[in-house]
């Protein structure tokens, strides 16, 4: 059942005649999921920084 369908790696990447349609789509998928992962991590870091700033402000008000 698991047989590589292309004669060579070059043929795999060419995926004639449709490589030009297929590969960019998978690149886009990678970009979207990777990009959203990055956005989430950044938003999380920013939220932590915001709470830290608020804490520091509270401390200076108290002192």
């Amino acid at each position, binding site marked *: 059942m698991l047989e590589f369908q292309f004669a060579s790696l070059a043929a795999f990447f060419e995926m004639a005649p449709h490589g030009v349609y297929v590969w960019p789509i998978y690149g886009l998928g990678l970009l979207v999921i990777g990009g959203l992962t990055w956005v*989430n991590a950044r*938003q999380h870091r920013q939220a932590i920084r915001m709470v830290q700033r608020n804490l520091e402000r509270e401390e200076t008000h108290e002192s």
Partner: protein
Amino acid sequence: MGWRWFHQWGSPRWFYERAGRWQLVCGWLALILLVVGSLWGLGFAPVDYQQGNSYRIIYLHVPVAFLAQAMYAAMAVCAVVLFVWKMKLADVAMQSIAVMGFAFTAMALISGAVWGKPTWGTYWVWDARLTSMLILAFLYLGVIGLRAAIQDPDQAGKACGILVLVGVVNLPIIKYSVEWWNTLHQPASLKLTEKPAMPASMWVPLLVNILGYYIAAAYLVLGSMRAIVLERERRATWVKELVGRA
């Protein structure tokens, strides 16, 4: 036993403390499944006798198109939970799912258009399936925009919830569009009730990728929800303690 499993979701802290671990597990699981499923579909599944290699877009297109609709349904369930139980976390989930759902809908539309070019000879036709999916994308955008336009989070949540519930009418239209109208889009490739029309060597990797993308969506939604919970609960003692310790 009882309702404790459900009431726990009422506590943003309970969720935040656990979601990090769930997110990690989902992330790695999705990565493994998607690498295996995509390589399998791209390199090892047999060539389609009619469409040639272009059909390999199916291993991304079908999973993300499923998710585009499933995430809208999930958002509607969150809206119901928000209205019935006033659960804050349901609104957080609604906010996260709107963004991720739009991303998956856009991917479904773009991958479909690119697949259409070699198969139908055109990127776009105003066909029932394509048009109803485009409306789904606009519904997601509407929900995102509505939240951005209302400053009070409680009011924004309620307004978004109503829009989400009204938009549910589009889901059966998408699903049955290929049966109710004569469309260029092919009918469903996989059905729960019937044997697939393609051989196992084609649908097994598709199933792997469907599972992979579902878990990837869970990973993305959990990550986004964690950040939003911190933002919204920034004045809560537990958040201050958590950040103070870090």
